[in-house]
């Protein structure tokens, strides 16, 4: 199931700099998108979400951008902190459903 793809398996960034994580989707029926952070041996932790009626949502250091025409979303983390080192998943939900479809994840390493 390749409906949601995160093409960068890993990202390394210096503390204090911006982390940009990308996610592409193919199904135009998706209308809600979420980003989760996951540490090893823990469950996904919700970070931020965006509805398809918006193109940007901001919460503290986290901003999600949605480009519907390109079927692309991104997560910006500014400034990046060592505690942000984790695997980040994007997920999408269809308008008529409640099943999350996940991307494969991007492992972020923030170097002090």
């Amino acid at each position, binding site marked *: 199931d390749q409906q949601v793809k995160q093409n960068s398996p890993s990202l390394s960034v210096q503390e204090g700099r911006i982390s940009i994580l990308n996610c592409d989707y193919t199904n135009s029926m998706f209308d809600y998108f979420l980003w989760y952070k996951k540490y090893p*041996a823990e469950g996904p932790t919700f970070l931020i979400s965006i509805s398809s009626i918006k193109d940007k949502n901001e919460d503290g250091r986290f901003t999600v951008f949605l480009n519907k025409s390109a079927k692309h979303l991104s997560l910006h983390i500014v400034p990046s902190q060592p505690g942000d080192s984790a695997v980040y*998943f994007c997920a999408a939900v269809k308008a008529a459903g*409640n099943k999350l479809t996940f991307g494969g994840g991007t492992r972020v390493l923030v170097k002090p």
Partner: protein
Amino acid sequence: EPEVTQTPSHQVTQMGQEVILRCVPISNHLYFYWYRQILGQKVEFLVSFYNNEISEKSEIFDDQFSVERPDGSNFTLKIRSTKLEDSAMYFCASSVSPSGVKTQYFGPGTRLLVL
């Protein structure tokens, strides 16, 4: 802050045995879900549950799987006869509603190992 809890954290079982994974969703949530993540693979949806019945299930969720809300707080996933390929992390999640804000909150997971 309310959270989803899961027990046990780890379960080792022999192939062919039955296992029950337990979850306590967030108390005011109405929708409940099970997902799993096989090592090295994506998180995959298994089933969603609302109003004491399954609302959606994936192809993975075959007759070997069942879910139940036996009381007002627990939500369980039963695997009747485990196979080697059932070895995975199993995550329970819950949400207030499937429409509008669709955020699902996940538990810490149960690591199931089938030998």
